[in-house]
């Protein structure tokens, strides 16, 4: 482990040095490239030419990004380090070191965090990510609190800090400075706002309870409007000059606050509406589907920036409002893409921001030191933050259902981190108007470094010491979800009955409105059906079944390749489902996780999901078989010329689909023939299968399914099975549910033919003991097929000739496809393990 780290560290430093030493030269002149080339290439055409100038800017940007990403990689090699020191602090320090190296190499400040870079490219992904994965219910449940802190709290911070500094300045403690009251207020307004990037970065590692988190985080997002307005107002006042400011201007300032905040929100909502509407119709362009999400949200940011409204509010609310509909509309693959891309962009931006903050600080030109000013700023922002929090909480606790306790208040005051937004704003200042800009810049940098490094470092021990109610890491259990749903209804009913209009009442009304109108407009018809939370629970159940089965296998030692901390925690594999509420459930988890580790985590989850898919064929659970594969409509994409080859997952789905049909066919056949198998044989089969599976690992090879399917369907006809025909009727409808419902009917009609399907029998008064006694995958009807196959031992050697005779074998073993087509996978049986490090 250590050798690895030190190796990479060496490479990193080397890389930084290289980039750092090349960069200034590249900037300072035409560069060495062309001259060298001219020197070489005086005679004739050159085969290889070095196009340094043309690629200089993107090349260097990319190199710096690479350095930042590498550093993140290094930090996460040792979990110990990141668990003590927040990554943001490490990155700032690294930035300082790198900046120092560059400075030492060539006395020029290299890359700095420019406001343009920050506001247009680095900030939007982070905020969009925050909005898109916002736990909506938690957010709106605490909206009042958040708004109070964001608006009143920020104004309070700005005013008190600015005025107090001015007061001290008047007393002469700071010496001679060319600043007036307005400059101080301007500085106060930009230093007042709690920074979303810093808060996210630090709080993610500190796992405080979700209410506390959402309050601090929500505040940091929503205070943007206040910051923007205060900043703009005071900047224009400074430009005007103190004596020319009239009362009218002040009123205008107040009005502009409402315009900026509400306007920004409105822009966000409008774009969210557009986005939801667009994704409703993108099912034929699955490839570019995720693109819409990013482009339209980014457009909302730019639009409100153009209209000088609050851009952060716009993109936040765009994410918040569209998440439900977009997640329901887009396909599962697109949802995964969106999720990964968003996380990647956000964590990448965050990394770059903090590193560049460090690098930017290494520039003697911007440093102007004034001990009194810097220290007093630090003191004032901390003290006034604490006072503000206590005052506001005192008011809020009279109305809040969940009281904010003293400990929470301490964490809230202490968690008021300042960050890159303040820095970018202060850099934006015009030196001609604000004479002491450099002092402001250096003070801001000190404040940012102090809050991020010192407070970020100490907040975790503080939380532990104060024993703040930590967030629970476990996923909600099924029972809890059901009860929770029941509670919503009970509470709103009690409010209805007792004639009160409360929180639950409003929520109820909104969800009714949503169901009646919004969802009808914004969601695909099929998505409307499946969006019910309980249906999502059901969706999860399928996965859970598979997982618990796998876990069982693992206990027996045959499926050790799948990670399973505990069966309880495995309920939620809903990263794989694009359903709104399940995602919502896991969002808080996602948000709380370190952004960069989330990627890792999600990867392992994805791995796990794939493993599950992989083991599905072992799980002969009716539910699984019938519900996990996709509706037929999606397979049609295979034949579309507009589509690229569908990915492995889809192929696996398809595989499962056909396998299921085959199995049902065979059981149908064997039921007719009277073949009966006992449980023991089934178990034997399972163990063998598990063993085999372990050897063959993930069957994501290329499956020649089209032809097979064709053959298969033709053969099926002999047995008069209705699925193929029935399924084709549903090609037009895109939803899984219709198809599923259809299957249910099939099963009912089939059940007379010998397949006992307890789970889907419509019989109202079904014997419960049957349901719970016999695990569905052990039901006699299903054991027939596997044991039949189990008898025929398939040699485990991969050989391509099987490709030629897939159907003959297919009756015997579904493995034959996998073995025939995925020999390369067999070479790495421990592949999934490697992702867990």
């Amino acid at each position, binding site marked *: 482990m250590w050798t690895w780290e030190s190796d990479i560290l060496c490479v990193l430093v080397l890389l930084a040095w290289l980039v750092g030493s090349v960069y200034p030269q590249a900037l300072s002149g035409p560069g060495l490239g062309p001259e060298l080339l001219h020197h070489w290439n005086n005679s004739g055409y050159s085969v290889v030419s070095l196009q340094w100038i043309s690629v200089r800017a993107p090349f260097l940007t990319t190199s710096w990004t690479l350095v930042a990403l590498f550093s993140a990689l290094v930090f996460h090699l040792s979990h110990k380090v990141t668990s003590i020191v927040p990554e943001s602090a490490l990155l700032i320090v690294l930035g300082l070191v790198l900046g120092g190296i560059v400075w030492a190499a060539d006395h020029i400040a290299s890359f700095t965090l420019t406001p343009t870079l920050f506001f247009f490219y680095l900030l939007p992904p982070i905020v969009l990510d925050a909005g898109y994965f916002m736990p909506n219910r938690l957010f709106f449940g605490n909206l009042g609190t958040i708004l109070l802190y964001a608006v009143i709290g920020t104004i309070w911070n700005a005013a008190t800090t600015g005025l107090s500094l001015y007061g001290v300045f008047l007393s002469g403690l700071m010496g001679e400075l060319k600043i007036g009251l307005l400059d101080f207020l301007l500085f106060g307004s930009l230093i007042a706002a709690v920074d979303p990037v810093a808060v996210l970065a630090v709080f993610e590692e500190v796992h405080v309870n979700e209410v506390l988190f959402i309050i601090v985080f929500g505040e940091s997002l929503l205070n943007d409007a206040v910051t923007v307005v205060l900043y703009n107002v005071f900047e224009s006042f400074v430009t005007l000059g103190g004596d020319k400011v009239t009362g009218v201007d002040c009123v205008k300032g107040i009005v502009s606050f409402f315009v900026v905040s509400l306007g920004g929100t409105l822009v966000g909502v409008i774009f969210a509406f557009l986005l939801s509407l667009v994704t409703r119709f993108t099912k034929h362009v699955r490839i570019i589907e995720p693109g819409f999400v990013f482009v339209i949200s980014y457009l909302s940011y730019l639009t409100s920036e153009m209209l000088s409204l609050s851009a952060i509010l716009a993109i936040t609310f765009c994410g918040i409002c569209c998440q439900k509909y977009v997640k329901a509309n887009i396909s599962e693959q697109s949802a995964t893409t969106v999720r990964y891309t968003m996380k990647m962009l956000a964590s990448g931006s965050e990394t770059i921001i903090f590193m560049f903050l460090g690098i930017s600080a290494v520039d003697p030109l911007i440093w102007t030191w004034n001990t009194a000013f810097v220290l007093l700023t630090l003191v004032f922002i901390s003290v006034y933050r604490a006072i503000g929090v206590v005052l506001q909480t005192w008011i809020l606790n009279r109305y809040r259902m969940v009281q904010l306790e003293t400990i929470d208040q301490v964490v809230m005051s202490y968690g008021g981190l300042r960050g890159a937004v303040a820095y970018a704003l202060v850099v934006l200042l015009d030196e001609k108007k604000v004479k002491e800009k450099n002092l402001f810049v250096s003070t801001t940098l000190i404040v940012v470094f102090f809050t991020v490094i010192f407070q970020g470092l100490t907040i975790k021990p503080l939380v532990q010491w104060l024993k703040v109610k930590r967030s629970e890491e476990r996923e909600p259990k099924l029972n809890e979800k059901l009860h929770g*749903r029941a509670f919503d209804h009970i509470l709103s*009913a*009690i409010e209805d009955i*007792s004639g*009160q209009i409360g929180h639950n009442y409003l929520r109820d009304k909104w969800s009714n409105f949503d169901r009646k109108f919004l969802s009808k407009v914004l969601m695909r018809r099929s998505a409307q059906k499946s969006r019910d939370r309980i249906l999502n629970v059901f969706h999860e159940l399928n996965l859970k079944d598979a997982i618990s089965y796998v876990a069982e296998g693992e206990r027996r030692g045959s499926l050790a390749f799948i990670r399973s901390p505990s069966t309880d925690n495995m309920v939620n594999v809903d990263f794989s489902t694009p359903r709104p509420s399940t995602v919502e459930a896991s969002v808080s988890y996602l948000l709380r996780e370190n952004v960069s580790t989330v990627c890792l985590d999600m990867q392992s989850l994805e791995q796990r999901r794939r493993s599950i898919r992989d083991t599905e064929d072992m799980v002969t659970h009716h539910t699984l078989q019938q519900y996990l594969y996709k509706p037929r409509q999606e397979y049609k994409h295979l034949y579309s010329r507009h589509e690229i080859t569908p990915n492995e997952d889809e192929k696996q789905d398809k595989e499962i689909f056909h396998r299921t049909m085959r199995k049902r066919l065979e059981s149908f056949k064997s039921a007719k023939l009277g073949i009966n198998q006992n449980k023991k044989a089934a178990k034997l089969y399972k163990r063998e299968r598990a063993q085999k599976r372990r050897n063959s690992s993930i069957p994501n090879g290329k499956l020649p399914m089209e032809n097979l399917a064709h053959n298969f369907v033709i053969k099926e006809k002999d047995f008069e099975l209705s699925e193929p025909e029935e399924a084709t009727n549903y090609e037009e409808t895109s939803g899984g549910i219709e198809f599923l419902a259809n299957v*249910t009917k099939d099963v009912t009609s089939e059940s007379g033919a010998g397949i006992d399907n307890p789970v889907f029998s419509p019989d*109202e008064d079904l014997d419960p*003991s049957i349901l719970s006694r016999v695990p569905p995958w052990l039901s006699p009807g299903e054991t027939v097929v596997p044991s039949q196959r189990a008898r025929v031992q398939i040699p485990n050697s991969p050989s391509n000739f099987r490709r030629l005779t897939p159907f003959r074998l297919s009756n015997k073993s579904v493995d034959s496809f996998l073995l025939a087509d995925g020999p390369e996978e067999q070479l790495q049986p421990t592949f999934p393990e490697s992702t867990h490090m």
Partner: protein
Amino acid sequence: MGVSHSSKEAWERESRSDFWWTQIQEGFRSQSDFNWDQIKQLHQRFRLLSGDQPTIRPENFDYVLDLEFNPIRSRIVRAFFDNRNLGKGTSGLAEEIGFEDFLTIISYFKPLRSHFSKEEAELYRREKLRFLFHMYDEDGDGVITLQEYRRVVEDLLSANPQVERAWVRSIANSIACRALKEAARVSGHPRQEDQPYQAITFEDFVKTWQGIDLEVKMRVNFLNQEAAAL
């Protein structure tokens, strides 16, 4: 709440004159969970629901139009008449309930008082859970069977009009099955394939709620006004 000041006074004058007033006082005496204002407010609502009758019958709840869309409407209404919730017996439904009973039911949703000791809080919690348990356990045999659980899930699912009935039924079955198994695991029952977990007893029910902040979930905002009033 929706009543102007003068009419409220008028109402109070009127109330004082007849037997409603005694009823309010009765209610106040029996229910220490509510303060005076809340009692009056609830009483006003009670009269509205009952149509100025001393008791409420299940059909009176039809008056509440907002309830119409509630998928578990019938369960909630029934909970108001459940003898177990009213503390009047171990099973069966009351035909009609008076104001005091009405208060008893509403008081299940009272927030926990901060000065409660740990034991009291636990007792309170169990009371609330018992209310929910009774809502699930329709036949009053002290356990939630699979069928009962399934019907709850069905009811919850029926909120979505686009889902077909037959399908709901099968899904509900599957979910309920799963939930029962989970409950068995959580409550620490030995897991045996041949000895299925049949039904959830109240003790097990309480166990499934471990770690859930019931206080946040099972309370209605307006009942917390006391904190502001004090």
